[in-house]
């Protein structure tokens, strides 16, 4: 089976599951309307030629789950840190602007890395390119934490994808 066919099938299944989850209707008329609209959307996206370029990161699923656990732990501890800083009187922050080397080779991993930096309170990714990430951080501690590369190592990456 070619890649496009496989992708179309998985897109259809995913879209129909979404339709069913949002509507929750069982009668025949509604189900057939749901199937019809799903197929119509799959046909549109096929015509618009977006399918070959956007890939499902299906091979990464297990690693992604582990990464989400790591990320939620990071987000919670960063939240507590920022809330403490908000309520600490006097000089409570030490903003930094610095560059991190980009260690990821595929676009998907780069996006995940930059978005996770922004998602954790206390660090915001300002610029991304193939060589480096520019980050604004609220404190010296969170900047040092990012420099240690803990976050970069945790981001999953599929080496079999082509480099960009």
């Amino acid at each position, binding site marked *: 089976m070619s890649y496009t066919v496989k992708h179309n099938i998985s897109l259809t299944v995913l879209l129909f599951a979404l339709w069913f989850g949002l509507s929750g209707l069982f009668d025949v008329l509604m189900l057939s309307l749901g199937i019809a609209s799903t197929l119509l959307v799959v046909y549109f996206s096929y015509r618009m030629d977006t399918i070959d370029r956007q890939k499902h990161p299906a091979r990464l699923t297990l690693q992604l789950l582990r990464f989400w656990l790591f990320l939620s732990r990071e987000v919670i501890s960063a939240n507590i840190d920022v809330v403490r800083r908000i309520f600490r009187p006097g000089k409570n922050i030490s903003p930094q602007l610095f560059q991190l080397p980009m260690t990821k080779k595929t676009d998907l991993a780069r996006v995940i890395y930059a978005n996770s930096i922004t998602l954790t309170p206390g660090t*915001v*990714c300002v610029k991304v390119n193939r060589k480096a990430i520019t980050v604004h951080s609220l404190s010296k501690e969170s900047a040092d934490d990012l420099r240690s590369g803990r976050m970069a190592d945790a981001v999953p990456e599929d080496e079999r994808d082509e480099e960009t």
Partner: protein
Amino acid sequence: MIFVEIISWIFIFTGALLGIAGGIGIHRFPDFYSRLHAVGITDTMCAGCFIIGLCLQTGFTIASLKLLLIFVFLFFSCPTATHALADTAMLSGLKARLDKEQ
């Protein structure tokens, strides 16, 4: 059931408190870039606590599935919006107020 009710309200109240903390942070921090970090609180844990609390209220129904979908969309769109704001501010030449003793 009273147990679930109590847990759910603990989550909702934590979310509300975090939202207030984020609002105070927006006013306390000195410049645009550091205010973005305060917004990060309301984007992540405040929204997350609310959604968990409301999911416990609705129970295992289609409404909780929709709530989880809202969380997923927030999870992907909030960092993107924050990054777009920071990038645009940097492009238009807004200087960040940085710590002097770097």
